[in-house]
């Protein structure tokens, strides 16, 4: 499978990338390429120009900023997975990054690329939602910060507009708080049929993978968790507001059942006792 022809330009900085986007009609940004290239090969997506941003070194970092850790959008999953700083303060994020695809995918894919793709079946958006991350979006007009809860707008659509780049993701530290990620799939490398991310502590969060058209923050269940409700109450609340679909892997009812069961398991694994 071969993509439709396109022109290729390389950006050397964020400003350069934004300027290149303004210069070209029908352009797309290319980061690790592990969502975009497969879709272009299937000809689900085509673009006249690809602007390669993968080598913008200023967007690849993991930095301790006191109350939060800032991760550059072009940081590869492999680096997130292996970061000692994240393992100490944001175990959920490091763990989830280690369960994206397979090692080859994690060697190329980037945190920002995965989030901007906005796939409801992807792992990292759920981690960002459960952790209450903030997305830093840069465009010609400057920089704005969008909470993860408002970032995922529709199927494969995020708050990042045309000519904007997600440049950084800020994760409030969760040092010492329990967390868990329960992913149900058939083969190790597969997308989740359903997955549940749980973060305990102050501002606890529960987020779901593949339970609707966007990555889903389970607000009712998160509120029940914050209120210290029994596990069974939280698990019952977890499917509120979801719109899971039927496909070859599972029916909606089965996905809802999975979401409840995985929530119970995740809460137990995270050390929640109530």
């Amino acid at each position, binding site marked *: 499978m071969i993509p439709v022809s396109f022109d290729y330009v390389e950006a050397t900085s964020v400003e350069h990338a934004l300027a290149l986007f303004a210069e070209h009609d029908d352009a797309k940004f290319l980061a690790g390429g592990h969502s975009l*290239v497969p879709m272009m090969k299937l000809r689900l997506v085509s673009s006249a120009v690809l602007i390669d941003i993968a080598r913008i070194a200023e967007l690849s970092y993991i930095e301790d900023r006191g109350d939060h850790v800032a991760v550059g959008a072009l940081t590869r999953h492999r680096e997130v997975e292996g970061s000692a700083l994240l393992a100490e303060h944001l175990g959920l994020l490091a763990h989830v990054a280690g369960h994206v695809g397979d090692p080859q995918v994690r060697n190329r894919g980037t945190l920002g690329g995965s989030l901007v793709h906005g796939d409801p079946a992807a792992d990292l958006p759920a981690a960002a939602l459960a952790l209450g991350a903030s997305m830093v979006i840069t465009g010609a007009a400057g920089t704005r910060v969008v909470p993860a809860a408002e970032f995922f707008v529709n199927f494969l659509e995020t708050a990042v507009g045309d000519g904007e780049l997600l440049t950084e993701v800020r994760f409030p530290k969760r040092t010492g708080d329990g967390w868990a990620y329960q992913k149900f799939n058939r083969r190790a490398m597969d997308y989740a049929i359903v997955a549940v991310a749980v973060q305990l502590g102050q501002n606890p969060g529960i987020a779901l993978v593949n339970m609707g058209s966007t990555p889903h923050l389970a607000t009712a269940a998160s509120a029940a968790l914050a209120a210290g409700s029994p596990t069974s109450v939280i698990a019952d609340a977890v499917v509120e507001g979801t719109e899971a679909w039927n496909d070859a892997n599972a029916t909606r009812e089965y996905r809802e059942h999975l979401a409840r069961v995985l929530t119970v398991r995740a809460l137990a694994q995270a050390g929640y006792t109530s």
Partner: protein
Amino acid sequence: MSTVPVSVTVNGEPRTHEVEPRVLLVHYLRDVLRLTGTHVGCDTSNCGACTVILDGAAVKSCTVLAVQARGCEITTIEGLAAPGEPFSAVQQGFHQEHGLQCGYCTPGMIMACTALLSENPDPTEHEIRHALEGNLCRCTGYQMIVNSVRWAAEHPDGVVPESSDAVSSAPSMQGAGS
């Protein structure tokens, strides 16, 4: 049709070509450089048959554009042992422990295992299986592949102990298959 210059180092040899931006790395390796040991399996980033080592990291070359690799060092299955030279430890491990049947997934398996051992020279069975999540084999059931990696870990120089009656050098033809 626009092209861009791509310079890469493949198996230690500098190569430069004008390529269309849409050319995938696996097609550049197979069709332009004629290094057909790297296989196209699923062509959907799943099976890992196209795995090569790009600047030290295993990647699926069906999901990397050739232009994305410019300036990089690439190792393919052909780069592990020159014709007539001894097999690498991982190649010898697959030979000793019968880590293949039909052989289609083998080049990708060997490259993924080679990347694993360069980072973790003494992996546990669990670590081997985790590292091979991105490589599918429909013949072996994986156990023989895991054994092959363990053999390579235990024989890092790839030398077969005297009592074995193994073929210990690469065939005198380019590549491991087509």
